[in-house]
């Protein structure tokens, strides 16, 4: 099933990359990339880590919890950064989210 588009990222959302955006380690250039239609994006290390945690089961809050614990950093600041990064990706059309079935 097609995931929704034009999403608004919040602490409760469970974002995932849609099938047309693929996170991949580029062995030749030694850099992580997101492959998308007519685009190759180069996410930074933190974005890669966030996207690897976004497996469709964790919500954004869970992701922030994990990163806050790992880096011993304030959760609120991390949460704001994670939401901003994911929203940017969503606005470019390269993020969708898992929603509970309503029908």
């Amino acid at each position, binding site marked *: 099933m097609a995931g929704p588009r*034009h999403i608004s990222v919040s602490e409760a959302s469970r974002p995932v990359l*849609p099938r047309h955006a693929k996170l991949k380690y*580029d062995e030749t250039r030694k*850099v992580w990339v997101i492959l998308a*239609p*007519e*685009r*190759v994006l180069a996410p930074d290390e933190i974005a890669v880590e966030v996207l690897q945690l976004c497996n469709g089961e964790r919500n954004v809050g869970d992701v922030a919890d994990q990163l806050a614990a790992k880096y011993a950093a304030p959760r609120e600041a991390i949460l704001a950064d994670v939401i901003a990064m994911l929203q940017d990706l969503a606005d470019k*059309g390269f993020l969708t989210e898992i929603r509970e079935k309503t029908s």
Partner: protein
Amino acid sequence: MSDVTIPPSDSLAVLEKQRSTAESFGIPLAVLLEITHRCPLQCPYCSNPVELDRSAKELTTEEWKKVLSELAEIGVLQVHFSGGEPTARKDLVELVKHASDVGLYTNLITSAVLLTREKLSDLADAGLCHVQISFQGIEEGLADRVGGYKGGHRKKLEVAKWTRELDLPLTVNAVMHRQNLHQLPDMIQMSLDLDADRLEVANVQYYGWALKNRAALMPTVAQLDECTEIVEEARERLKGRLTIDYVVPDYYALRPKKCMGGWGRQFFNISPAGKVLPCHAAESITGLEFESVRSNHSIAWIWQNSEAFNRYRGTGWMKEPCKSCEFREIDFGGCRCQAFALTGDAANTDPACALSPLHETIFKQAEAEAEGETSRFIYRNFAGGTLESENGT
């Protein structure tokens, strides 16, 4: 590609900022595979060369698979299956499957008219990541006339719907020129109605077939200004809903485009017969020999070392006014194919540049053509073109 022009520099812009492939002539991120020149459409602006490769010369399935494996191995990340019409090849599903198996991101650039729902579904199952469908207009009267194919427009709409039903992202490629630019606002609306992710508003680039048809296609300056305004307004209004890429016809620009991101810097394509080319129009430059994947050389060797790629790389080949120009590493003197077509020497400054001594003459000529009466097309085919009849068939 069936009847479109991709601006490869745009596709790569994002990663280019991070790490320049240009400086080392690293292997391009994306490669265009023109797997056949056969196409049921006859668009008068087709980006294929006027001398088309016949099917007997096409690479076999096994040869294309070997090419795909080699591309993945040397660091190519994306391939665009294009043509001609790529779905005219019976082995397309097999090729897409192989590309996915070796880790390549796959785009299909299609006219859509040969696709069935089953075939599209098979392609999706084979790992196809993205579908780009060309449209010639917003209603079948004009669209089918431009494509020279009855029923084409209706079929395209149907395939676009299937594409989204199969959860594949969709790009609408709208090739624009004098005879359809008035439909641009509706084309944007049509893209929204089709639930497209991207719209490419691609003004015709005038080489090959399009150059033959320039008098029938060249927009007026007023039309182009309006087009730019419409695109800018729509981009703002549709932010986050529809990405709009915009390619202007360079005749009306003061600076030439950085064609292909610079010759041999970040792009190559492979022709149906297996020639490795710096751009899809490169074979129009006579006197250049292009190496084939059927030769003893690897694709990486051809990219790095072949004479054709090195001839116009960098700035050493330049003549004046390019040679001492402060923009020489910004636009690399524009388009070599256009320079050759319009001046007879690919090393001359592209006349799209205001600094070219030919710019004014050519601009005036184009402007006169745009105001002229010619509207009949010369349709693209293997016979070297057929003039549209008086009543438009």
